């Protein structure tokens, strides 16, 4: 029982980075921008958040630094695909490779370490105890005492994203742009600024996600730390068609898989196999999704 609670507790913390990045990706998904640079945005913000938290000794500045780092990559990406009209796929891959190289180099250059930066000087995000819930036996252990970004994303970000995409004017324009950008242009709304806006919000959320990873879920930076989370987020977006609630559920599912993986190590299963679990489950999820799509299609054909 105790183990079970512990799994759920760590699942929630590990789900948040993916959740935030996937919510960001939902914006570009609805704007029909194929943003695969999310992995790079996340990695950059994980690095800048740790670096600035280390330098200033303040998690607030770390958070700001994480967002700024991600926004820099977002600006480069937007400049490339919107102004220079480069291919989204190639640009995204190139940026991912660039961020891997740049963070590795800067880690070596600034901190003079290879591989991982672990230091007591890195100030992590604060953990918050919620007064009333804290005392409820099981639920309290799971929900209370998580880092601050867990609460911010669950209580503020998810509803806000839902509202903005589906209920606001900006969201309508966003989805219209994704549906047919020429149609939007023809009624006098410029589609490029809308795409840019969606990318900026995506960059902001990826920045939060990267920070939640390196200052929340963990309190360190390792080379290539995002470890495919940006891609898993992309898979989640494809699976849910960019719906915030679906993203929330699948991200938590991802977190549970990671948590289960970590706890299976105690049972004697080698850690390398348990580390595979999130990736295998992503493939399985895509598989199940595609089977359902196929069934729907064949049903439609029968009618």
């Amino acid at each position, binding site marked *: 029982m105790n183990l079970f609670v512990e799994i759920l507790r760590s699942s929630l913390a590990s789900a948040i980075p993916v959740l935030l990045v996937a919510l960001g990706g939902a914006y570009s998904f609805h704007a029909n921008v194929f943003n695969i640079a999310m992995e790079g945005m996340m990695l950059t913000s994980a690095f800048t958040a740790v670096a600035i938290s280390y330098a200033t000794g303040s998690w607030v500045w770390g958070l700001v630094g994480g967002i700024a780092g991600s926004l820099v990559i977002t600006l480069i990406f937007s400049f490339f695909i919107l102004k220079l009209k480069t*291919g989204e*796929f190639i640009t995204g891959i*190139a940026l991912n490779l660039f961020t891997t190289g740049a963070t590795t180099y800067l880690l070596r250059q600034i901190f003079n370490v290879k591989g991982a930066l672990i230091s007591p000087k890195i100030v992590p995000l604060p953990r918050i105890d919620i007064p009333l819930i804290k005392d409820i036996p099981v639920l309290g252990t799971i929900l209370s005492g998580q880092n601050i970004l867990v609460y911010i994303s669950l209580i503020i970000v998810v509803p806000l994203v839902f509202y903005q995409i589906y209920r606001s004017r900006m969201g309508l324009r966003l989805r219209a742009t994704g549906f047919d950008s020429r149609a939007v242009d023809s009624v006098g709304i410029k589609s490029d600024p809308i795409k840019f806006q969606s990318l900026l919000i995506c960059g902001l959320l990826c920045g939060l996600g990267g920070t939640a990873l390196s200052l929340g879920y963990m309190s360190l930076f390792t080379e290539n730390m995002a470890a*495919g989370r940006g891609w898993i987020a992309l898979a989640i977006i494809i699976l849910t068609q960019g719906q915030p609630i679906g993203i929330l559920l699948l991200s938590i599912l991802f977190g549970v898989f990671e948590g289960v993986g970590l706890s299976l190590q105690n049972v004697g299963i*080698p850690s390398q196999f348990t580390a*595979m679990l999130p*990736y295998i489950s992503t*493939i399985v999820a*895509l598989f199940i999704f595609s089977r359902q799509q196929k069934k729907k299609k064949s049903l439609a054909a029968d009618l």
Partner: protein
Amino acid sequence: MKKTVVVILGVLLAFIVGAILLSAQGYHPIESYISMFKNSLLTKIALGNTLARMAIFIMLGLAAYFGFNSGVSNLGLFGQLLMGALVATLIGQHLNASPVIAIPLMLIAAAIAGGVYSGIAALFRLGFGMNEFITTLMMNFIAKYLIAYLVTNPMRDPNSQWPMSRPILQSNVFSRIGDIDMTVFLAILIFIIVFLYWNFTRRGYEFRLTGANNLFARLGGCEVNKNFFSSMVISGVLAGIAGAFLIMGSTQQNKLIPNLGETNASDGLMIAIISGQSMPSVLFFSLFFGIIQTGSVGMQMDTNVPSEFTVMLQAIMVLFVVAFRDYSELFINLIKARSKSRKLRTEDHEPVC
């Protein structure tokens, strides 16, 4: 011709930006660059290392090129490479036969392993419509952890302090001609074969057509799905051979190590992106990447610039080349359109009064 100029311009600019970065950090940029090229070309051993690196880059660059230009997003080079390396190691440790038999066998087995691993992703796509770039990427991580498990547990060399496998038999390692590893000749041979296949066979034409315009290829009667599968498999085969090179090359460690090929696969992607749609460029940039990576180690000793600098230099290069290549077309079209409209304005619409 225009494209070559664009690419060279991009590379030069990346070097200039690199120089600015270096001098901003208090290094001497020109000295560092000279040291980089000196340490990769001027001694026989260094040249041998550079060429051996080039051989691996050619295979991975070709693998990525083949995918990108036939409309297949194979981002799983890393996983396919590891599978090739794993199979080559397993055979190489145990098969005590004449090298004439053993070495080709290892290469073919590694190629099949790479091909099977990418083939799985291709089947996922064709059978179930799962995006291949996500599945191949996820399979990278699965392969990486599989290798990490194998070298720490069942395949671990009991005599070594760090997790790694036992080396393959010495007779199964490639020999050298002078200071040049056999893999170099083999890679160039494979390059020539792939080049001819790509440019002068019907299937190669269909691949190019599908890459340029999938719909057109399908309406023109190409079996798009079959081609998708073959080009994915060929891409994996090439990556698998690269994995075998990493195990069997005489300049390599000849055993499985945890971080084997981690950066090489992304180097291959970069080379393919820079090369765009010109296959000979793959050869050139493989050499170029070989030069800067081999040189970076010597540069670190000479000038204290961390060897990781090259990773960033390469990535900047990729960004500049991508930017220049795509924008130059847009820019030229824009100028053409402007001059045309100006001409039309002055010719046809002279002021009436």
